[in-house]
């Protein structure tokens, strides 16, 4: 028995989740399959979480257009999905004439693309805004309307509301084969078979391989690694804006992000992987970040570093007629489309920024491909509420703590003040792994990195999921926390 659906989305990263959310507004059936144990685990979780304004993009490009829309509407989106974000503003620094020219070009881009709140400031104003930065900056581009968000939190919010509006998600399911018969796609996974009228591939690093299961090769993804360092919330006050450096000489800059939670995030590096998809951090990358971090922010306390991690980015390149990779890389978003198969291929920066806009954009295209375009649902429920956070209430309204159910009084994570109630709610909403809990509640994300709460959460997961404690995983099958011998 095949499971029939109008649209099948492959991949529940942030793009898959937002596409599902956009489709869930229409009278159409949508299913999403994800090979990992949770949504938003791949590229979606390992990035800076910056919402850009689009001055980096070529005027007239899809990226520039979607970025501009995204940054203007971002507060409204976060309000709708009840997602935490911070308006930080971004300062792009120049240390000399070459970089000055690049900044001026970006300012012109902003003007042409009609992007508001981007202007050039001088050294005096810069050091008034950020006194801790290295001296010697000549100018800075100030993009005031730059936001930061926890990217997985944004994606999970879209996932939850898509699910509430009828989209089915199938986790731990990997596509094995796709064939097309009389206009219908037959998709076999390790668990079942789907029949779908349309396929939307949001397969991240696999989006070229998935495309080639049914279509002629067009674009190949060249993986590139990015390393990051995370500093404790104590350092959050050191800078208030997102800082990036436009390198004076050829080379990569650095970005420092005061995150939504008040940590400092340093990164990314750009490391060539020579074809491998190895998502591990490299010592060279970490040393590079340390060096650049010290250079840019001399007071950065390296004893406050709590974690390092890496992500892998897809770098899309066109193939020539013989199927060899050309040096023609794609600067804009590209959506491949062939006979009902849509592919958001090789989406990287500013993918998080544009996730919602890409979801809407692709939905319009998918809907238009049906003979008669599906109508909007009348019973779409737009309400999605975040899990209440003790730590937020503590800052904003301590008296409101008293109104919460008793399980919210029991603190599980000592670093971030996450209660048992928050963890129970995360489990109720679909978290089944330790990392799933971490992404939904922040438990284990603090300076002790789960040293205190991991054992407590392990027991709670085992109890709530009625699963043997030795089967509880960090992030899906094979990552069991403890092992019986």
């Amino acid at each position, binding site marked *: 028995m095949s499971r029939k659906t109008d649209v099948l989305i492959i991949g529940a990263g942030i793009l898959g989740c937002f596409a599902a959310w956009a489709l869930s507004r229409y009278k159409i059936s949508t299913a999403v399959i994800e090979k990992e144990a949770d949504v938003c685990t791949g590229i979606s979780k390992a990035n800076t979480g910056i919402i850009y304004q689009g001055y980096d993009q070529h005027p007239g490009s899809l990226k520039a257009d979607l970025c501009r829309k995204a940054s203007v509407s971002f507060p409204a989106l976060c309000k709708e999905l009840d997602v935490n974000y911070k308006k930080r503003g971004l300062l792009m620094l120049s240390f000399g004439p070459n970089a000055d020219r690049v900044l001026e070009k970006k300012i012109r881009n902003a003007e042409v693309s009609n992007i508001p709140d981007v202007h050039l400031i001088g050294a005096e104003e810069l050091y008034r805004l950020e006194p801790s930065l290295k001296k010697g900056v000549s100018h800075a581009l100030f993009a005031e309307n730059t936001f930061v968000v926890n990217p997985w939190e944004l994606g999970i919010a879209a996932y939850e509301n898509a699910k509430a509006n009828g989209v089915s998600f199938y986790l731990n399911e990997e596509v094995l084969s796709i064939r097309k018969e009389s206009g219908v796609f037959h998709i076999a996974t390790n668990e079942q078979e789907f029949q779908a009228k349309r396929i939307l591939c949001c397969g991240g690093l696999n989006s070229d391989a998935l495309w080639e299961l049914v279509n002629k090769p067009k674009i190949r993804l060249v993986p590139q690694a990015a390393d990051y360092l995370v500093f404790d919330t*104590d350092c959050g006050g050191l800078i208030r804006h997102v800082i990036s450096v436009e390198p004076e000489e050829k080379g990569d800059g650095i970005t420092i992000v005061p995150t939504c939670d008040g940590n400092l995030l340093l990164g990314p590096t750009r490391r060539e992987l020579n074809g491998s998809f190895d*998502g*591990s*951090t*490299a*010592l060279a*990358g*970490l*040393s590079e970040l*340390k060096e650049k971090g010290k250079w840019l922010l001399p007071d950065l306390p390296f004893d406050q*570093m*709590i*974690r*390092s*991690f890496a992500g892998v980015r897809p770098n899309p390149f066109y193939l020539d007629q013989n199927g060899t990779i050309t040096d023609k890389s794609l600067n804009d978003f590209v959506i491949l489309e062939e006979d009902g198969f849509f592919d958001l291929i090789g989406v990287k920066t500013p993918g998080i920024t544009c996730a919602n806009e890409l979801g809407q954009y692709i939905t319009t295209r998918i809907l238009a491909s049906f003979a008669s375009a599906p109508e909007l649902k009348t019973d779409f429920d737009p309400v999605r509420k975040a899990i209440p956070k*003790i730590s937020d209430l*503590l800052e904003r309204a*301590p008296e409101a*703590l*008293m109104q919460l159910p*008793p399980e919210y*009084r*029991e*603190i599980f994570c*000592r*670093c971030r*003040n996450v*209660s048992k109630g928050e963890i129970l709610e995360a489990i109720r909403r679909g978290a089944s792994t330790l990392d799933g809990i971490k992404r939904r509640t922040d438990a284990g994300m603090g*300076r*002790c*990195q*789960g*040293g*205190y709460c*991991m*054992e407590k959460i*392990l*027991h709670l997961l085992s109890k709530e999921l009625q699963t043997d*404690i*030795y089967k509880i*995983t*960090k*992030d*899906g*099958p*094979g*990552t*069991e*926390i*403890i*092992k*019986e*011998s």
Partner: protein
Amino acid sequence: MNHYDVLVIGGGAGGMAAALSALENGYRKILIAERKESLGGILLQCTHKGFGLGYFGEDLSGIEYAERFQLKVQRTEIQVRCNTMVLRLYPDQTALLSGTDGIEKISFDVCVLATGCRERTLYSQEISGTRPAGIMTAGTAQKLMNVDGLEIGDEIIIAGTGDVGQIMAGQLSLSGKRIIAMIEKEDHPGGLKRNQENYLKALRIPVILNSVITRVHGRKRIEGVEVKNLLTGELSFLKCSTLLTAIGMIPETDLLKTSFGKEAIPDWLIKVGNCKYVHEIVDSVTADGLQLWDTFKGRPHSST
């Protein structure tokens, strides 16, 4: 608002001693707030001996040591609230407590911080590679094994030679698990002499000196580590399926950071035990708690 002469945060060895000595020094209304289910702190996961030689003149297990102090506290009018965390301290000598009993704001004259210490984590070090399952601190392993009665894994490497690491190496080795090696960056193992004798020497636990772990291998569960010899720079690969860390302890003073930020610590607050600095043995933590009031120059208590 309930008022206490002394609020003790943390009911481990330091906190219990501080509360008992507060009583002896004339303070009457004393409250211990403990986040776990019972008093004793980290002692409750220590099934091994070596506690109390200084204070009791006896060789006790951590659990026995904790029980003796639990009894002492129970015999007094000291109030104890377990499953309770102090969420915040305020400059006006009040505190917000949250626990299974509810959320309550209380006031106090003096506050004793006895929050102990926490373990340094692997990824706070410069470590490259993957971020797989099968890695935890030695203290977490100790809790899982000794309190919960669970196994944690086999083919174990221990980063560092801190006391808890040596104790766990001993315990795991005695329960038939294979300790592949402990990796120590110094030219000699850390920890107490008696632990070195009882565990490293007696059980022949391999220790690799002058070395650190530089890379973690394994996509899902840990499969091994890269070890760098700091003298020669030589890199080697060691296979394992579990990695424990015993690379040092850090005094736990988070509450002060979240409550006061960069402001000065108020004179009504005193630190005791491991949150002040990490003590080698529990007997000296107890001693610190008992002597607390001899030197306290802060605000005088209201009962006098």
